[in-house]
């Protein structure tokens, strides 16, 4: 699964620390997500999408086979 968290965060001028606080995870988890090293649960993916002011999970996350 790939994502555009870093790009969207940059558009919103949001730091990794701020996003981590908003979704209730450690900053290291945001770093792992941005580097596509960690696939989040649906719950976390939804929280990230909401924090990045998007509506659908597909707006941020792209599923790949």
């Amino acid at each position, binding site marked *: 699964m790939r994502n555009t968290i870093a790009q969207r965060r940059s558009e919103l001028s949001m730091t990794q620390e701020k996003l981590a606080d908003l979704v209730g995870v*450690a900053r290291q*988890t945001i770093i*792992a997500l941005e580097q596509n090293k*960690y696939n989040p649960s649906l719950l*976390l993916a939804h929280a990230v999408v909401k924090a990045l002011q998007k509506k659908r999970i597909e707006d941020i996350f792209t599923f790949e086979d």
Partner: protein
Amino acid sequence: MIGNPKWFSRRKYTGWGFTPKTWQGWVYIAVIMLPIAIVASVNPEGTWTSVFLIIWALVFAVDFIHIMVGMRKDERERIHEAIAERNALWAILAVLIFALAYQTASGIAAHALTPTFDPFILAAIIAAVIAKAATNIYLDRKN
């Protein structure tokens, strides 16, 4: 409770427990250690010293548990911790099983009539099996 879980981070590379990550955490450690050092140096043999040290240790043992339980972990950190703890358990089991086999073999070599292994080693393995089964039963019912 005295300590705040936010003052500490989970010990990942040097065993179990927690380590201070803020100055408040270091003050907390100093608050625990200082009275122990003072009392132990002023009257190391006294009865009241022993009573104080036991009560002090109990209070902070409860507080340590509170800190460990309250320490925030997100889903990725939980997965990492679960895998690390599982690997640690495998290492412990490997050593225990080796010890059990070694002690039993030594007993056989010495022509002992009764098993000569340490029963605590067997008890530790059985306790681990029970803990694993209980955890799986609980988790299967929960989700």
